[in-house]
């Protein structure tokens, strides 16, 4: 066994570094520039710590670090593997970009309580990385709950009636399902197997009845309702009352991806994809996910509020990821892991653009955005790239992962899933491309923005440009993320 090229506590440090930033942020609340410096410092260190482990993981190794022996026979522990790295890398990289955007957005909007905002953002990121590196189900559950609670004050940042309603829905769904379904499922699993460790072979011994397996599967899939599977999806559009940077990072990347990440961990680590395929459980997953894919895309078509349309699009894309994993074929699961990163870059671009439009013009509704492309060409071009990635068209990364999932469907011999992918891609195109088309191509009379070129502040348009560019780069060089996913599936 080779010596690991980093200190063994690195995953724990990667989690703690943003928590450590919280007191510094609070102490420098009177000096905004110093305060934001701490966010970037923590973000940079976090990214570096995670990158320092990347080479070792890509070489096909894993790294386990025990945090704390909390119960007899069960400890809180971290395990870094390909899938965890992939997710941690995406989340920590996008945190930095989002922080740039947050500064532009929050200062331009003169939002109150910015110190609180940056604090809870840092805590939420700790929880996200904690989920990514969780070494067993108990650890994952702990960080999952920590994320639900720490994001509450971000979602309800405006502290008005609407925020209260959104926040109430947010917690009702997230806490309700995690306590009501995921927790007992975890305990029943522990009771049957005596183990909550993730193992690619699954933890269930022979002879567990199929009825029990189905019950547990459903409890887990719906219990981690951050994944947004219908009928536990409506917290996500409700949470769009949050300031846009929150929606961008948390509701396109961190929170929702933590949901699908947890579900995928359950599939690959607790059940094991072989068991899913052998017991035909994957068909159940595919049906639930397909239903969500199609229905949410149809609902997205009807939304006029841009952020709500993005939210329903997210619900659809999350179900995509679960559908890919539900195929229980190696290609499908690889594709769905990859889609976590591809969708992250695409969707965060779209949210950034929506926020930039709001900052520059105060518009929230799609019907008010006719001709906006002339006024904000950079933003709308980034929006276009982001849409392509979500639809799954070249030259964007979204295509690579969709292609893998489609091939997975063929490998698993489930032709009807192909049809779902096809129909939903059309629907994706139908709800995004008209926005872009109307933004650029309209007559002078139709245009609602007769004024000259006037972009949002640079802090608001630069981040979407960066993420859109990354989306395109990922089309040509998907290697890094693909490598992690493949390491995971072959290891």
């Amino acid at each position: 066994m080779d010596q690991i090229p980093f200190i063994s506590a690195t995953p724990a440090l990667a989690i703690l570094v943003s928590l450590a930033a919280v007191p510094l942020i609070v102490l420098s609340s009177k000096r905004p520039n110093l305060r934001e410096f701490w966010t970037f410092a923590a973000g940079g260190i976090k990214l570096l710590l995670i990158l320092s482990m990347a080479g070792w993981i890509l070489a096909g190794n894993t790294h386990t670090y025990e945090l704390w022996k909390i119960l007899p026979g069960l400890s809180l522990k971290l395990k870094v593997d390909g899938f965890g790295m992939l997710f941690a890398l995406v989340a920590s990289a996008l945190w930095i970009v989002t922080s740039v955007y947050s500064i532009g957005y929050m200062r331009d909007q003169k939002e109150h309580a910015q110190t609180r905002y940056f604090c809870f953002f840092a805590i939420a990121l700790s929880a996200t990385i904690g989920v990514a590196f969780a070494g067993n189900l108990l650890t994952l559950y702990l960080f999952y709950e920590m994320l639900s609670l720490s994001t509450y004050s971000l979602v309800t940042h405006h502290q008005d009636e609407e925020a209260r309603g959104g926040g109430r829905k947010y917690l009702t769904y997230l806490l309700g399902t995690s306590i009501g379904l995921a927790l007992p499922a975890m305990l029943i699993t522990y009771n049957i197997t005596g183990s909550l460790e993730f193992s690619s072979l699954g933890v269930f011994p022979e002879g567990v009845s199929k009825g029990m397996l189905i019950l547990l599967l459903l409890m887990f899939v719906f219990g981690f309702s951050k994944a947004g599977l219908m009928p536990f999806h409506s917290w996500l559009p409700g949470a769009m009352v949050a300031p846009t940077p929150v929606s961008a990072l948390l509701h396109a990347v961190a929170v929702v991806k933590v949901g699908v990440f947890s579900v995928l961990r359950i599939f690959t680590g607790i059940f094991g994809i072989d068991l899913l395929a052998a017991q035909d459980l994957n068909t159940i997953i595919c049906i639930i996910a397909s239903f969500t894919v199609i229905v949410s895309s149809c609902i997205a078509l009807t939304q006029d509020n841009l952020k709500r349309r993005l939210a329903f699009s997210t619900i659809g894309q999350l179900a995509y990821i679960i559908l890919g994993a539900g195929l229980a074929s190696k290609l499908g699961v690889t594709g769905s892991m990859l889609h976590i990163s591809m969708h992250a870059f695409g969707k965060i671009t779209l949210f950034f653009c929506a926020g930039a439009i709001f900052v520059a013009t105060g518009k929230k509704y799609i019907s008010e955005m006719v001709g906006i492309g002339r006024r904000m060409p950079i933003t709308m071009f980034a929006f276009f790239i982001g849409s392509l990635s979500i639809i799954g068209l070249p030259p964007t990364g979204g295509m690579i992962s969709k292609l893998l999932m489609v091939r997975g469907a063929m490998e698993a011999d489930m032709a009807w899933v192909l049809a779902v992918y096809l129909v939903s891609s059309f629907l994706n195109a139908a709800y995004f491309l008209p926005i872009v088309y109307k933004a650029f191509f309209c007559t002078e009379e139709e245009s609602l923005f007769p004024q000259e070129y006037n972009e949002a502040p640079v802090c608001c348009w630069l981040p979407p440009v960066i993420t859109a560019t990354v989306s395109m780069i990922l089309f040509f060089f998907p290697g890094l993320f693909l490598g992690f996913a493949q390491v995971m599936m072959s290891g």
Partner: protein
Amino acid sequence: MIAAQTPILILLAPLFSGILITIFAQKSKNVAFFLLILGMVGSFSAACNVLLQVLQGSGPIHYRLGDWPPPFGIELVIDHLSGMVLFMVSGAALLTAIYSKHTVEVEIPDRIHHYYTLYTLLVSGLLGMVATGDVFNLYVLLEISALSSYALLARGRGLAYIATFKYIIIGTIGASFYLLGVGYLYIKTGTLNMADLSTMLATPEMHQSPSIKIGFIFIILGIWIKMAFFPLQGWLPNAYSCASTTTSCLIAPLMTKVSVYIMIRLMFSVFSADYIFKTLQWQQFMVWMACIAIVVGSVSALAQRNLKRMLCYIVVAEVGYMVGGVWLANSNGFSGAVYHIMSDVMMTLCLFMAVGAVIYKTGETSLEAMRGIFRRMPITAAAFLVGGFSIIGIPPTCGFFSKWYLITGAIETGQFHFVIALLFSSLINAILFFRIIEIGFFSPFDENGHGTHQVIVVNEAPAMMLVPMVISAASLIIIGLYTRFLMSNIVQWTIPVGL
């Protein structure tokens, strides 16, 4: 040898400080406070010492009062279970004593020395009930603590007199039931010593004897009244919520938990797991009753608009947790119940202290008192949050791990209704606390409805109240993190034979 005398010092320290307070502290409230703290510190350090002795030594510590050998004399028996409960009770009493400095001066301005004397009597009664190894001595101490608690509770606000009067009637009935039951046992066996009773009751004839059964029923009914187990919980919310802040901080966490301890003690140290679960076989019924207690307590808590009343109903629900855990009749359920005694003392203490601080600062008792709490009283709010999270059962607070064991135990015996009741209660608790968090976080709205832009002045409770509150909040997380240590060093040793 002072070390050999430490068990009795646990009881004597508060008792003597009570006597000293009556004699010397009539003029000065500061002297009274000082003597109170002195007594509580003495008691707590003796309890620490004894707990350490138990943890290091082999087997329980037996202390003979007046050196009369049992079964003729009274003895104190301190094993892992009672050592742990003594530690928690004396610790909570010390924290509350520190906390009481400001609240007592406001709420009970006259005759503070009488109040503090009653306080010490109550504490020594409770500690004695935990330490004693004699069923009749237990009755005496039960009455000491009950009588002093009536007097303490009556010095509250509003309907405190009426509520306490009800409690006196019901409490006395409970104590009489207990005494009747002890009478039956005494007639059949001729002894009052717990260990002695236990050997005598272990025969098949005794197991089949209807008199013993009636004795057991009387005893257990008496204890259920004392611990406010459904459907005997009616007296508790009124009596506790009308009490003054200090009184409720002291009584609410301790009285019910000590009663649960006594239930466990009598079930397994006087009677036996064999008798309870094989001869009587009430477990199915009892777990259902516990479920009802949990559901009724939680739902009633939801209906309250008064902070303290809400907490009181949570206490009722939590009693259901522990009773259910014990009657699951397996080691996980039992461990969960014992662990929950520990964590629940601290959870309830933390919440009552936080709510007490809010009432102290605002003078309001309704949920609306929590308006703007996060800005006005950030530390109190943080302690309240930790307590709330623990009641909901969010890791890594200790509330999560007690649920973990209770649910595991319930799954093992296949009693899924208990699992559902626990989860239901968690969800209701989540609603309860997030409703308060909403009030704290969202109101007051300013005119344009967008956030609290106006400056709210920080107006935190005094340090004497904050320190014990923060300690109790921190202990919730510490207990949670050290679950493995507590389980393998304490709880595991308390599991009775036959589970």
